């Protein structure tokens, strides 16, 4: 077991008039090599939850185990935990501060006390992982476009070589092109390096297409946990009830099924939809003959 959360509760500003309960009794297990999507409304506790996974927040009650180690025991070096679990914040381009992209990406490895050569190697490797030209290394991060800045920020976590990558809405506020690029890079990172990935996103189409397991949060609780097919087809009703959307094709077939019994409601991707439509039209042509 890579990560295990046991009865985790978290409250912001406890015993204050502004007290808010952010997490309620979270139990969660994550294995190495998983690719997980985390969905839920804004303010449902997603960001709070992921900040527990690398020890940035300490649960009000409950335990967080990483590789079997209770990370809030006395004497645990949280820096080591944060090397294992790389967390990319929302709008990570807002954290850039160095003079060059190279320095920016080298920040983490330098803090690890690595040798000059190794740092260089890691920086170029990370640039490659996020599909940025080596010519970017000497540019100022503030001269880049929003999408490029975000990829530099992602690279600056990748250069630490974490075993797990957590991404908090990596596509927020990007244009469609930038969005697709960053997602395909994340997919490539998963395929090539088998890093465990937890992806927080509102983009249901991409989530359905990319991840193997989905966690659905609502009001501080994990209410659903399963494969995209289970969540989007069998639990469609529940998702809609809490106000979340289905992937567009799934939504379309869900509505069709509601109206006519012939349609298969469990469609997840455009390819599946194509097959289903072809199958149906062929049948009806046959019947007409």
């Amino acid at each position: 077991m890579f990560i295990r959360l046991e009865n985790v509760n978290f409250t912001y500003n406890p015993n204050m008039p502004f007290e808010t309960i952010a997490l309620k009794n979270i139990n969660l297990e994550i294995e190495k090599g998983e690719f997980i999507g985390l969905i839920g409304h804004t303010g449902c506790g997603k960001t709070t939850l992921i900040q527990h996974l690398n020890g940035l927040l300490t649960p009000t009650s409950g335990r967080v185990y990483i590789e079997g180690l209770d990370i809030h025991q006395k004497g645990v070096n949280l820096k080591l935990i944060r090397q294992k679990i790389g967390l990319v914040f929302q709008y990570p381009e807002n954290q850039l501060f160095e003079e060059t992209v190279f320095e920016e990406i080298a920040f983490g490895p330098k803090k690890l006390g690595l040798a000059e050569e190794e740092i260089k190697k890691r920086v170029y490797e990370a640039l490659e992982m996020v599909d940025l030209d080596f010519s970017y290394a000497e540019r100022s991060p503030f001269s880049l476009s929003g999408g490029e800045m975000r990829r530099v920020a992602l690279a600056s976590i990748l250069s630490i070589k974490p075993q797990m990558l957590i991404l908090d809405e990596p596509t927020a506020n990007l244009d469609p092109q930038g969005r697709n690029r960053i997602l395909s890079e994340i997919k490539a990172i998963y395929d090539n390096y088998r890093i465990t990935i937890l992806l927080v996103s509102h983009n249901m189409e991409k989530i359905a297409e990319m991840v193997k397991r989905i966690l659905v949060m609502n009001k501080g609780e994990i209410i659903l946990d399963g494969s995209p097919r289970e969540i989007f087809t069998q639990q469609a009703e529940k998702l809609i009830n809490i106000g979340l959307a289905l992937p567009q094709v799934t939504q379309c077939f869900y509505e069709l099924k509601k109206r006519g019994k012939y349609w298969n409601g469990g469609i997840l991707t455009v390819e599946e939809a194509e097959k289903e439509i072809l199958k149906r039209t062929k049948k009806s042509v046959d019947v007409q003959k």
Partner: protein
Amino acid sequence: MNILRNISFGQYIPGKSLVHDFDPRIKILGCLLIIISLFLISHFWGYLVLGILLLLGIILSNIHPRFVFRGLRAILYIIIFTLILHLFMTQGETIFRWGFLKITREGLINGLFVSCRLFLLILTTSLLTLTTSPISLTDGIEKLLTYFKFMGLPAHEIAMMMTIALRFIPTLLEETEKIMKAQISRGADFDSGSIINRTKNLIPILVPLFVNAFRRADELAIAMEAKGYRGGEGRTHYRELQMNKKDILFFTLIVILTIMVSLLF
């Protein structure tokens, strides 16, 4: 990581009470009078009277004493520091000696006196900010400053700047916390190392913070312009401040009390 959340000095605690309801102008002037008299008083008895007055204010404000004293904790060190300075640095009749250090009678009295003064100062201003929302506070200040307009004082502009500054304190705190967390996730370390190293470690926080603050200021300016903001000339208020009987009564009480206390002690 929760350091930033614990700053409660100057925080507003919403509530409904007599003290919350007073006109902000009255509260500001009242505080000013109390502060002036705190400096005029030269005897402990005066502090006792004002202390009781403030205690009454806290009770009437319905605010849990925990919040009041949480805010005082931050300045406890300053009080202790001044107390120590006074204890050892004042010349006079020695009452205690240990090596080259000596405590004088005058030092002890002076130290306690100044500590009391500081304590009551902070208590007064805390009571003001705890019971007055930033908006009504700046409204009050703006109204008070307009009386000085004949001197060319840009009352509205000053008030607007204060409103904006106050408005962005929580935003900046939140942002600082977020940037700190992000840099910690990237391997930064803010709690260990020498003072020089710790100062250097602030760069990854300060640079993004300033970059974002400037960007935000720019956006705010454009947004204000888009909404047709053109300074205070002819601008009306959504909530007009109005004084009623209880405000005037309260103010007269404060005036009489502070004058008496200042003259007597």
